[in-house]
C-alpha cells in the first residue's frame, strides 16, 4: 500500500512528475491514471476531468501517490535503448475495479538498473497501489537476459475471473481468483502440439519449441483469448490453440490491440535483421475482412503510397487507442526521439500534410498541438470522459499529460507547475540548469494580454539573446508562457553555445512590468 501525497491546492497543476510513461483509464468517467518516474522515484497521479460546454477539458483535481517500495518501478531502464518492440512499451491495462490499472513491475539488477521483471502493479486507488511480486522459475536463469520474460501484456476475463499475463519467454501466466484462494499458473506454448502446457520445474526453455508470448487480449465480442507470439497469432479454444491469421503465420507478432466500432484488431510485427528492426502494422477491419492485411499509408489526397513510415525509420508501436472508427496508433522510432501517433481510419493512415520537401507527414504530435513542447510521447489511451464522450490521453517524457475531448483536434496539457505571481511577479526557468540544446521554459504569468520581450543576459549584463520581442501573450490563470517560443536553449543570437555559467533572463511586458529569471548552462562546444 502506498501513501497518498495529497491533493493539489491548485487544481490541474500537479503530477507526480512530468516524466510520464503510462496513462490508463481509472474506471470512472473523467478519471485517468498517469504513471511517472523521475530518476529513482516512481508514482501515480489520479487525474479527474470534466468537459465544458464547448468541449474544453478542465482539470478538476489531481492527487498523487508514490509507489511503496522505491526500489521497484513500472518503467524499466531499457525503455529507450532497447530495440525490441515488446520491450519498448509499458502495457497499462484497466482490468475493472478488482484489479484497477495493471502495470508491469521491475526491480534492480546487480548493476542497479531496473531490468529485472519482478511482478506487476495493481493500481486500484491512491491508497492501494498494490505490488504483486511474481518469482521467476529457476530455468529462467538460463535465458540471456531477464528482460526476455518481462510482462508485456495483460487481459482480464471478468467472467472466469482470470487475469492472463504475457511473459515473453516464460509464456503465459494466469492469476486465477475464481476460487477461495487465488492461484498462479504459468503455461508455455507448445508450438508442435499447438497447445498451452503447464511449465514444469525441470523444463527446458527452448524458444524454438516454446515460442515467446508477447501479448494477450480477450476478444471483446467472442470473449476468446488471443495470443501474440513469436510464431504467429493464435486463439485459444477448447481443443487447444488455433492459428487465426495466414498472413501472420510464423510472424513475430509483438503487439495486439482490439477495439473501436466497427471492431478493429491491430497487430504489430517486428523482428531484428542485423542492426535494423523490421516492423509492420497489420489489421482486420470490419466484419467482411477475413484476415489481417498490412495497413495502407495514404497521401493527403487519399492515394495509397508504396512507401510508409517504416521506410523512413525503424518504428515500434507504443500503444493503440480506439475511438469509434478511428484507431490512434502511437509509434516511437528506434534509436531516436521521434514519436507521434497515426490516425488509422477505414482506408488506412492518411497524411495530414505534405511538407516543403514533398515529404508526407503521418505522425501527429508536437506539430499538430498534441504537446506544447518537443517531448517524446510514451503512452496513449482512450478513456471515458462522460457518458457520451470518449477522451484521448497521451503521456510524455517531460511534458506531463495531454488530454483531448475531441479526438485529438485540440489538447489540454496537464503539467506539474509551481505557482506564479501575476504581472511577471515571479519568473521561473524550468529547468534552471541545462546543456545547450535543452530547453529551459521561461515561465511567467500575466494579468492581462500583453506584448512580451524576453532577453538573456550574461553575468556581466551583456545581452546574448533575444528570445521573443513584443510577442503577444494572453492572461492566464496559471501561466502565460507560450512553450513553443518562450524557452532558452543555452545559445546566443547567432546559434552559438554559450559558455558554462549563470545567465539572467529578463521578461518585460508593455505595461512596465519586468521580471527576472536565472538559468545555468553547463556549456557546449565552441564552433
Amino acid at each position, binding site marked *: 500500500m502506498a501513501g497518498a501525497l495529497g491533493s493539489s491546492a491548485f487544481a490541474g497543476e500537479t*503530477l507526480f*512528475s*512530468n*516524466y510520464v510513461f503510462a496513462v490508463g483509464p481509472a474506471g470512472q468517467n473523467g478519471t485517468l491514471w498517469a504513471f511517472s518516474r*523521475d*530518476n*529513482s522515484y516512481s508514482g501515480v497521479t489520479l487525474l479527474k476531468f470534466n468537459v465544458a460546454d464547448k468541449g474544453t477539458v478542465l482539470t478538476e483535481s489531481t492527487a498523487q501517490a508514490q509507489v511503496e517500495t522505491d526500489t521497484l518501478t513500472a518503467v524499466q531502464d531499457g525503455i529507450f535503448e532497447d530495440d525490441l518492440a515488446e520491450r519498448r512499451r509499458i502495457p497499462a491495462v484497466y482490468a475493472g475495479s478488482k484489479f484497477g490499472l495493471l502495470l508491469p513491475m521491475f526491480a534492480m539488477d546487480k548493476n542497479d538498473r531496473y531490468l529485472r521483471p519482478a511482478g506487476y502493479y495493481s493500481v486500484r486507488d491512491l491508497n492501494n497501489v498494490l505490488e504483486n511480486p511474481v518469482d521467476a522459475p529457476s530455468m529462467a536463469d538460463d535465458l540471456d537476459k531477464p528482460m526476455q520474460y518481462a510482462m508485456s501484456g495483460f487481459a482480464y476475463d471478468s467472467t472466469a475471473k482470470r487475469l492472463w499475463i504475457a511473459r515473453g519467454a516464460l509464456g503465459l501466466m494466469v492469476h486465477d481468483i475464481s476460487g477461495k484462494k487465488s492461484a498462479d499458473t504459468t503455461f508455455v506454448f507448445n508450438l508442435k502440439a499447438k497447445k498451452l502446457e503447464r511449465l514444469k520445474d525441470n523444463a527446458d526453455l527452448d524458444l524454438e519449441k516454446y515460442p515467446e508470448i508477447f501479448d494477450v487480449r480477450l476478444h471483446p465480442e467472442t470473449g476468446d483469448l488471443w495470443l501474440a507470439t513469436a510464431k504467429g497469432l493464435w486463439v485459444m479454444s477448447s481443443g487447444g490453440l488455433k492459428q487465426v491469421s495466414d498472413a501472420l503465420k510464423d510472424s513475430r507478432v509483438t503487439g495486439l490491440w482490439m477495439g473501436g466500432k466497427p471492431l478493429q484488431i491491430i497487430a504489430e510485427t517486428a523482428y531484428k535483421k542485423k542492426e535494423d528492426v523490421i516492423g509492420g502494422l497489420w489489421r482486420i477491419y470490419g466484419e467482411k475482412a477475413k484476415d489481417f492485411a498490412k495497413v495502407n499509408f495514404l497521401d493527403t489526397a487519399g492515394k495509397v503510397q508504396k512507401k510508409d513510415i517504416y521506410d523512413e525509420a525503424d518504428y515500434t508501436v507504443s500503444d493503440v487507442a480506439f475511438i469509434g472508427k478511428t484507431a490512434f496508433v502511437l509509434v516511437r522510432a528506434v534509436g531516436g526521439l521521434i514519436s507521434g501517433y497515426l490516425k488509422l481510419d477505414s482506408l488506412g493512415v492518411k497524411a495530414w500534410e505534405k511538407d516543403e520537401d514533398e515529404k508526407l507527414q503521418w505522425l501527429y504530435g508536437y506539430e499538430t498541438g498534441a504537446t506544447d513542447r518537443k517531448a517524446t510521447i510514451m503512452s496513449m489511451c482512450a478513456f471515458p470522459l462522460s457518458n457520451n464522450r470518449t477522451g484521448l490521453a497521451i503521456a510524455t517524457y*517531460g511534458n506531463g499529460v495531454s488530454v483531448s475531448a475531441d479526438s485529438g483536434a485540440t489538447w489540454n496539457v496537464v*503539467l*506539474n*507547475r*509551481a505557482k506564479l505571481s501575476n504581472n511577471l511577479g515571479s519568473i*521561473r*526557468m*524550468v*529547468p*534552471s*540548469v541545462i*546543456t545547450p540544446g535543452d530547453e529551459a521554459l521561461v*515561465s511567467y504569468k500575466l494579468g492581462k494580454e500583453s506584448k512580451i520581450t524576453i532577453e538573456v*543576459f*550574461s*553575468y*556581466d*549584463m*551583456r*545581452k*546574448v*539573446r533575444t528570445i521573443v520581442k513584443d510577442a503577444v501573450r494572453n492572461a492566464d490563470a496559471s501561466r502565460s508562457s507560450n512553450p513553443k517560443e518562450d524557452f532558452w536553449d543555452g*545559445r*546566443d*543570437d*547567432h546559434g*552559438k*553555445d*554559450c*559558455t*558554462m*555559467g*549563470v545567465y*539572467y533572463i*529578463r521578461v518585460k511586458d508593455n505595461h512596465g512590468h*519586468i521580471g*527576472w529569471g*536565472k538559468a*545555468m548552462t*553547463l*556549456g*557546449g*562546444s*565552441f564552433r
Partner: protein
Amino acid sequence: MINLKNLVVTALAVCSFVDFSMAGPFTKKSELGGFDGFVERMGAGVRELGRGNTGSADTASMPGAFWNPALLGFRENLGYTLNIEKRDLDRLGGAFGIEGKIGKRMGVGFAMLYRGDRDFKVIDDDDETMGTAKPFFSMFYLGFAYRATRQDAFGLSLSMSYDNLDVAQYFEGIDMEDSFRSPVTINLAWFRQWNAKWSSSVVIRNLSFSKNLSAKWTKNPSKDNSLASTEGVRPKVLQIGLGYRSKIMGKPVYAWMEALDYQVADTLLAFDPQLHVWTGRVGFECEIVPNATLRVGMDDLNWMLGAGYKFEIRVGRRKFPIEVNYAFLYETSAGLWSPFSLGLRGYIP
C-alpha cells in the same frame, strides 16, 4: 586655460573613440557575453569601477596583477586592496590584491577576483525548487614587472580561473562535477609614463600554450561521462589605455580611456571584423577637496559614479595611507542599478 583645453580635447577624443567602438557597423558572429571571461571583463577594484573600470594606464591602479602587471614595476611600498560589490539579482563580487617591490626595478603582485550568485534556485523539470545554489567564478593572477626605464615598465601575469557551480548535489543519477579550473593563461603588458600628463598602456590578455595560443580548454561536467563535455574559450584581448592628468581651477583632474578588442574566435589572429568585439571605457575624476575624489565613468554602455577619500592612520611614527572608495553602477542594457560597492586600499610603508 591651456590645461582646460587639453582636457577638452582629450574628452572629445575619448568620446569619439567610445562612439566608434560601440557603434561597430559589423554584424558579429558571436555575442561576447556567451564567452568565458566575464570575471575579467567586469574589472576589479571599486576605485577603478567608479571611473568606468579604467585602470591599465594608471600606476596607482590596484590590483596591478590584474589591470596591468607592468604597473607593479612602479611600486615602492607593499600595497593591498580589498573590494566588495553587491550587484542587483543577487550577484556578489569582490577583488583582493597584494603587491610590492622586489629589488630596485621589479615588482610582484597577486590578485584574486570573485563573482558569484548568492541565490540561484535549482528548478527541475517538474518545476520544483530543489534548493538554492551559490555558484561562484574566480580568477587568480600572479604578476611580475620589470621597470626598464624611469618611464617604461614591462609586465607579465599568469592567470587561472576556478569556478564552482554548486549544483551537483541536486542531480540524482548523474555523478556531476561542480568545480572547474582553467589552465594557466598568460597576459603581457607594457606601461609608459610619457610625461607628467600623459601615460599609456598596452595589455594583451589570455594567451595560452595551446593551439593558436588560445585560452581554450575542455570541461567535463560529469565524472561518469553521462553529460557531454564542453569547452571554455576565453577570447584574446588587446587592451590599450591612455591617461591624462591636469588641473582645473587648481584642482587635480584625470581622464582615462581604454579601448578593448576581443577576438571571439579560436584562431591565432583573426582579421575578419565579425570575429572581433570592440568596447571602450572612459573615466574622469577630480579631487574636489584635498583627499576627496569624485569620479564618473562609462564601461561600454554601463555608467558609473564613484567617490574616494584618502586618509592616514598613524601607528607610532609610521603612517599608513588608506583610501576608502565607493561606486554606484548602472548596467544600461539590463536597466539595473547597483548602489553597493565598497573598497579599501592602502600601502604599508
